[in-house]
């Protein structure tokens, strides 16, 4: 009988997934795997939710991602960072989910503000702070670049591979997105005065 199901609340930075925990998990130690799940599901779920924008769909994506994690764990290189590896699997599962539903185009649209797809989490905008609101106001292609690079720490190369675009194109989106985000935040702080 399992009695610990609460995902751990942790501070910013590393989740505490150290090499020893990953090594024990790779050996199939159920206690280590349970610990790994409890430490990582919070960030994995929020990442999926920010990409697909729907709680039920995000849960499906995260579940699919962990199925892949358990299957691929023997091939995981211990010198790599587990969390980055996990996040990439979640991103891949989330983008596949959007592809199946014909919504992949949403996350790769760039700059066309008139054709902008609203952030599907926008109904929760009242719960958000200025940064989340500014992020939600970005064109989807730029939002995705900032989300994956600046929030979840994927490299521009990894983002390009997942989105099917060149690394250079990711950098251009990212730099434009940061400028627009900064402008939106400056505008917001002026509006609040």
């Amino acid at each position: 009988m399992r009695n610990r199901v609460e995902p751990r609340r942790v501070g910013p930075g590393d989740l505490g997934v150290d090499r020893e925990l990953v090594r024990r998990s790779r050996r199939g130690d159920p206690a280590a795997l349970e610990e790994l799940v409890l430490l990582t599901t919070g960030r994995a779920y929020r990442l999926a939710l920010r990409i697909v924008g729907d709680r039920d769909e995000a849960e499906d994506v995260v579940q699919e991602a962990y199925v892949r994690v358990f299957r691929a764990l023997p091939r995981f290189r211990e010198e790599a960072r587990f969390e980055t590896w996990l996040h990439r699997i979640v991103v891949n599962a989330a983008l596949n989910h959007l592809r199946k539903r014909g919504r992949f185009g949403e996350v790769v649209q760039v700059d066309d503000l008139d054709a902008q797809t609203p952030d599907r989490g926008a109904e929760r905008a009242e719960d958000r702070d200025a940064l989340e609101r500014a992020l939600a106001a970005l064109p989807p292609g730029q939002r995705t670049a900032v989300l994956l690079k600046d929030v979840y720490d994927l490299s521009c190369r990894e983002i390009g591979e997942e989105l099917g675009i060149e690394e250079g194109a990711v950098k251009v989106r990212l730099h434009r997105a940061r400028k627009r985000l900064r402008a939106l935040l400056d505008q917001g702080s002026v509006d609040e005065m």
Partner: protein
Amino acid sequence: MRCEQARELIPAYLDDALHAAGALEVHLATCADCARVLADYRRMLEELRALRDRGEEPSIELVERILALIPTTGIGARVLGTRVLGSVQAHPVAYAVAGVGSAVVGATAVAAMRWWRRRVEAPAG
């Protein structure tokens, strides 16, 4: 360098992705306004990074479903299998030589045993 140019370059400078950062750094050292803009960007990046721990928690049901997916057996065996396969792929010549060598030694041993049996079983005289 003018301030407009500096502000165009700052978003790329944050990733050390700028090949010619020298001129920008000279400007930043002498322009308090642009240095403040850079500091604002850096603070924004810190706040963005903190978003991964802000927001909704997954439901208890989801965490339980994932815990139930934990394989009770098999991962350790697959790790061993992956290691063996990886080792063979990394050193194919060594494994081929070892394989041929083992076959030769085995065949020689079998031949020697047969020869010895024939000799022992041969009628005296």
